[in-house]
């Protein structure tokens, strides 16, 4: 019997599990969170009594359907929440749960690990009250709370507008939405964005609703500093005319798109390739998510694509697993249709990545004392020093070795991309030439107690 392990119970993992269960299989699905849904379809705790339908708007139907379908197959699959995968061995996932180590052997491994916010540093970004866009959304859905009373949203992402709207719906005051992209950049990407007219009009409606509510929206901004003593009290930025402006606030949410979680793919032996539009590495896979050696990828952990694309790619990966392990492929013509829809959604995401570009050039203006690596307290000046010195670093892993940037608890999730961009700028080379931080296990904190406790080998259901 084929042993299938799925890592991640977001839309991609859930869709794959449902597809496999429909074919009579019993995959193991592990997820770090206590409830399924990942980020976009995060399920609030029942006791919170949160009106998730109001928060998700038109997305609620997909959210409800997927959760219902997943709940329906739960008796058949082995769903293991609160379980953190931290390494991949020989055809085995190493995870820990409740302080115990678990080994999960597999014939097929589907990595549906999703993504986190991509960030760029700014002066003052370590102050209490500064969070990512994803953090603002997560706090709403998990705790029914806002990151502050008067919030500024800044960065480069369609999520800026969605997160601001969600905060407003929950009674928060949105001091401003500061978009680093000039309005013209969004118009230029319109061609690719038209591949998903419904999502495009949804996105434009977010902006319209914020404007109608009197929220200040600025385009073409350059963040200068997040100021405050012991906590955020104001944001300073250059507006599109280059004038210095200040906005009082007690919290700031920032984000510059998404950063794929590819650590387990790398540990599993998948080759990663640099993608110029998304400016990050993704695992090399075929259209259905096959990486080779029994490893498959789906969702934002395969390629930034959003929740709908994650579901579709999860289904395709599951179908690929079935096909590769002895189940005859479907003849109902639905597979090409799913592939076409996925392709359309991915094209749309590329359009979004162009419309909401990463303003990496701005790193040139970072003063030396700005923190680059939050975990190890490494500054921009120290990074520059590591590159400019004798035998200076020529790629980002050497920068890490010299400065400790990326060696801390987040393992480069929140400094790695900025470090690579800064290195490329300093050396005057392309981003692709400086590489990306290599992965090390454990990819998430591993309690010492788990290392010394007896290990449990997870048996697969038959």
């Amino acid at each position: 019997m084929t042993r299938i392990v799925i890592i991640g119970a977001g839309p991609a993992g859930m869709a794959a599990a449902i597809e496999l269960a429909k074919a009579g299989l019993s995959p193991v699905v592990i997820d770090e969170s206590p409830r399924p849904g990942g980020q976009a379809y995060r399920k609030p705790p029942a006791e919170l009594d949160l009106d998730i339908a109001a928060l998700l708007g038109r997305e609620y139907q997909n959210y409800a359907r997927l959760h219902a379908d997943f709940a329906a197959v739960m008796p058949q699959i082995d769903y293991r929440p609160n379980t953190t995968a931290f390494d991949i061995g020989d055809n085995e996932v190493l995870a820990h749960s409740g302080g115990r180590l678990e080994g999960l052997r597999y014939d097929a491994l589907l990595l549906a690990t999703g993504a986190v916010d991509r960030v760029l540093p700014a002066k003052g970004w370590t102050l209490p009250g500064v969070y990512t866009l994803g953090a603002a959304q997560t706090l709403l859905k998990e705790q029914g709370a806002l990151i502050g009373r008067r919030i500024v949203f800044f960065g480069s992402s369609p999520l800026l507008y969605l997160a601001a709207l969600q905060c407003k719906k929950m009674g928060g005051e949105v001091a401003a939405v500061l978009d680093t992209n000039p309005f013209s950049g969004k118009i230029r990407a319109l061609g690719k964005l038209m591949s998903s007219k419904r999502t495009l009009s949804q996105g434009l409606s977010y902006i319209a609703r914020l404007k109608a509510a009197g929220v200040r929206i600025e385009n073409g901004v350059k963040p200068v500093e997040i100021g405050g003593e012991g906590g955020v009290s104001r944001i300073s930025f250059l507006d599109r005319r280059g004038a210095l402006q200040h906005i009082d606030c007690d919290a700031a949410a920032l984000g510059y798109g998404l950063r794929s979680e590819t650590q387990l793919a790398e540990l599993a032996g998948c080759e990663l390739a640099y993608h110029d539009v998304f400016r990050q590495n993704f695992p090399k896979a075929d259209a259905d998510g096959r990486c080779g050696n029994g490893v498959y990828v789906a969702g934002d952990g395969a390629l930034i694509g959003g929740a709908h694309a994650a579901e579709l790619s999860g289904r395709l990966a599951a179908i690929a697993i079935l096909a590769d392990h002895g189940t005859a492929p479907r003849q109902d013509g639905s597979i090409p249709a799913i592939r076409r829809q996925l392709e359309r959604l991915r094209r749309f995401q590329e359009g979004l990545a162009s419309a909401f570009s990463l303003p990496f050039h701005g790193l040139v203006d970072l003063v030396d004392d700005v923190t680059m690596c939050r975990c190890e307290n490494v500054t921009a000046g120290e990074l520059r020093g590591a590159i400019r010195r004798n035998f200076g670093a020529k790629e980002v892993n050497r920068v890490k070795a010299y400065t400790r940037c990326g060696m801390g608890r987040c393992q480069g999730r929140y400094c790695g991309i900025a470090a690579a961009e800064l290195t490329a700028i300093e050396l005057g080379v392309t981003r692709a030439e400086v590489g990306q931080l290599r992965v090390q296990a454990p990819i998430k904190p591993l309690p010492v107690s788990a290392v010394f406790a007896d290990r449990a080998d997870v048996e697969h259901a038959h």
Partner: protein
Amino acid sequence: MSVDGVMIDAHHGQSVLTAILQNAGKIRDLEFNGEPRAGFCLMGACCDCWVWIDGCRGTRACREPARDGMVISTRPSDFPRP
């Protein structure tokens, strides 16, 4: 539950992070330079909200459910203060 010896109240279902931030403006002081930190990603990826539970177990406060009787330290007991 107690945070660095001070008793605080939390609601059932809150994370340790939310419980602490309701009572204080920060989660911890960074071990390298003492600057205040209050979390960043709130989804268990950045570890900015790192605290120690019951004297020894380091954990992400945003992922840890607040529990009655918890003893939380915002610094490991045998690290020197910066």
